[in-house]
Every structure is written in C-alpha cells, then in structure tokens.
C-alpha cells in the first residue's frame, strides 16, 4: 500500500503549527497597534470646528490665561467651554466684522449655542474631575500638551486607561508646583523632576488612587 502522505508533509505540518502561532501573535500585535493608534484614540488629530479657534493665538501669542475662558477648571469637574459672551468680551471690538467670526455673532444674536466639537471625549463610564488634578499640581500641559502652540486643537494623549494609570502610579514623574500648573513649557528647576516630584507629593499631599472605583464609580 502506497503512503497516503508525501514525505514533505512532515515539514509542512511542523511549519504550519509554528506558523499558526506566529499568525495569531502577529494578529494580536496588529490589533494592539490599531487600538493604540490615532485611528482609535483620536490623539493628534485636529478637529474641524464651527469657528477655527486658535489656542496658539489666544493662549500663546496674546497670553490669555486658561482660566479666563475655562472658568470651572479649579473648582469643578469640567473645565468648561466658555459661553459665547466670553468670546464677545473682546470680539465686540476686535475683528468685529470678520466673516470668520460670524457664527459667534450669530450665536449671540439668536441665543443659539455654537456647536463646538468635543475634542477630549472620555467614555461615559469614566469619572474625571479637573479640580482635584489642578489642586494637586498636574499642569494643563501634562495632559493637554503645548496647547499654546496648537492652531486647531487636538487631543495630545491617548486618554486610554494605561495612560491615566501611568501617572496615578508614578505621580512624582509628572507633578509640578501649584503655581506652575497653568504655565506652558515649565521645566523643573535644575532638571531633577523626580527629586522635586517626591518633595511635591509630600508637600501637597498627593495620593492618587489606582482602585477600580476611583475612576469607574
């Protein structure tokens, strides 16, 4: 009786066993890459807005403090998007006839909200509060990047759980003195973030939690 399988089948069988492992591993790695990519997280993608508002111009070049518009950031969960009136504080006199700003003027005239597109959209199952982060010395820049250099605004970081946990586990790598929270481009004096960070954790009683129910309440 002739052999049913050709001799080469032995090799093919071995290769396909390992090959299957490699394919599965590669697929897993590929999925992981996709999951961390901007395609999924939205990081690094400037979103089109009803009015092309430039943080670079307002916060960077003019030096307007973050809190002028984001009034809730020190006291509330949300930093807040300013009401149209805040834009018009200046723009009733400056660029008052600019066609680009027509949606802003229209909003004031008709009392309809400007439909700004949300840039940082956390999942609804995550509890997040700005005020505690600001109070403990997490700089705006730490999460939002160099917003003073962004023309259109984008999300700097992935906002994925591993990203949150990185800081909650190692806050000394990120905290800064409270009076530097709103400063852009702050560097630790002397360059030793870890030593200063450890000091600040003690001085400001920084105790980030990593319990599930800290964020998923």
């Amino acid at each position, binding site marked *: 009786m002739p052999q049913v399988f050709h001799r080469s089948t032995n090799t093919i069988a071995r290769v396909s066993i390992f090959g299957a492992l490699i394919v599965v591993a590669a697929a897993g790695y590929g999925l992981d890459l996709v999951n961390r990519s901007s395609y999924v997280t939205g990081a690094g993608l400037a979103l089109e807005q009803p009015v092309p508002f430039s943080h670079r111009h307002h916060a960077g070049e*003019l*030096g*307007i*403090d973050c*809190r*002028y518009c984001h*009034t809730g950031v020190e006291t509330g*969960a*949300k930093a*807040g*998007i300013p*009401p149209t*009136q*805040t834009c*018009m*504080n*200046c723009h*009733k*006199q*400056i660029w008052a006839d600019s066609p680009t700003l027509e949606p802003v003027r229209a909003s004031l005239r008709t*009392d*309809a*909200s400007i*439909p700004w597109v949300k840039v940082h959209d956390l*999942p*609804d*199952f995550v509890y997040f509060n700005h005020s505690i982060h600001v109070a403990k010395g997490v700089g705006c820049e730490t999460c939002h990047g160099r917003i003073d250099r962004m023309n259109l605004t984008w999300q700097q970081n992935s906002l994925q759980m591993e990203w949150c946990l990185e800081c909650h586990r190692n806050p000394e790598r990120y905290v800064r*003195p409270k*009076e*530097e929270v709103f*400063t852009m481009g*702050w560097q*630790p*004096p002397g360059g030793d973030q870890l030593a*200063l960070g450890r000091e600040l954790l003690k001085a400001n009683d920084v105790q980030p939690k990593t319990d599930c129910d800290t964020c998923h309440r």
Partner: protein
Amino acid sequence: MARRIDARALAGWAAGLALLVLPGCRQDMHDQPKYQPLEESHFFEDGRASRPRVPGTVARGRRDDDELLVSGKVDGKLSEVFPEPVTRATLERGHRDYDVHCSPCHDRAGTGQGMIVQRGYKQPTSFHDARLRGMPPGYFFDVVTNGFGVMPSYATQVPVADRWAIAAYIRALQLSQHATVAEVPAEGRTAFLEGKTLDPRTGLPAQEAAAAGRAVPGGGHE
C-alpha cells in the same frame, strides 16, 4: 467522496460568529443614554442638555439677600468697606483673579495697556488715575459685576467672593504706585534704597529671604 457543504449550516455558523464578534463594535457603554454637561440634546428644542437657569434661581450656597456682598452697595450707595476682612489670602486670590481676568486689558500693573488694548480694544483708565484712586471698594466690585462703558460684565466668569478679592487687589496695586520709602519695613529699607528686590512676604531682601526659608521653586513668574 467529498462531503457536500450544507449551505444552511454554514450560514448558521456565520451568524453565530457574527453575534459573538460584532457586539464588540458597539459603543453603548462609551456613549450612555445620559447627558454630559454641555452635550447636545435631541430632546430639548434649543438642543442644549445643560439647561439655562430659570430666571430668579438662587444656587445653593449663593445667597443674594446681602446687599453689600452681592451689589457692592449699602443703602444704594457704593460701599466704602469690604464685606469681609481683607487678609493676605484675599489679596493672593485677588492677584490670581486679576491676572487672569483683568490683566488682558488693564495689564498687570493696572495702567490700562494690556495685550487686548494693544490689539485695538478701547484703552481703560489707569487705576492710578486720581479719580479711580478716590473710588471706594464697592465701585470696583460694581464695575466687575455690571461692566462699565465698553467693559462687559464679568459676573458669569468671576464669582462674588473673587470679585471682592479683585477689588482688594486693585487697591493694593494703587497703593503700590503711590508708596513712600517710609512705608518699606525698616529691616529692608537700606537694601531697598540700594536697588535690591524685597521679598513680599518678609520685607527682607529677596536673597536673604531665600536663604532663611526655602524659596518656592520657580515661583514668581511673570
């Protein structure tokens, strides 16, 4: 003989597999059927999930029956006094809020040459002008609250207590521009006359103050 593939069984398997895998694509937990602040609403006619306040609403803890506190006036006249004692904490709070909300136009020294003015906004009167130096604290509170001339009201941006803190800080700014050497604490006077910077907390020359206690890292930025 090759087994005939049962098309119906195959379809069944495919459907079962899809049932297992496709729910992973849904974002129901990310976007739950609840409103986040300032989210768009398809229920309310104006499209706002955050509802405008009903006129006359007083938020919890925001009393509005204290005439001096909420209007800066006593019996309809601008108040000569602050509703609360002015402490260092008040001034530091005022300093912060002044820099955030007022300095874009009034500039950090209060002379009215802020960045927005440089970009074309009508220049406000300097706080060091004789008329404004003579104004009572209630005046500054009133202007922040209700606006003045082209200046808009800042009532929605600045809470009541912070408006008073700003009024106190403006007074401090005014004093700062009309101080005499005699008002410099005696310990620091010699150093001051030599042109050294004094630490605002101790009144001692900045270097000595830094040596006495650890200086705030990176503090006092412009």
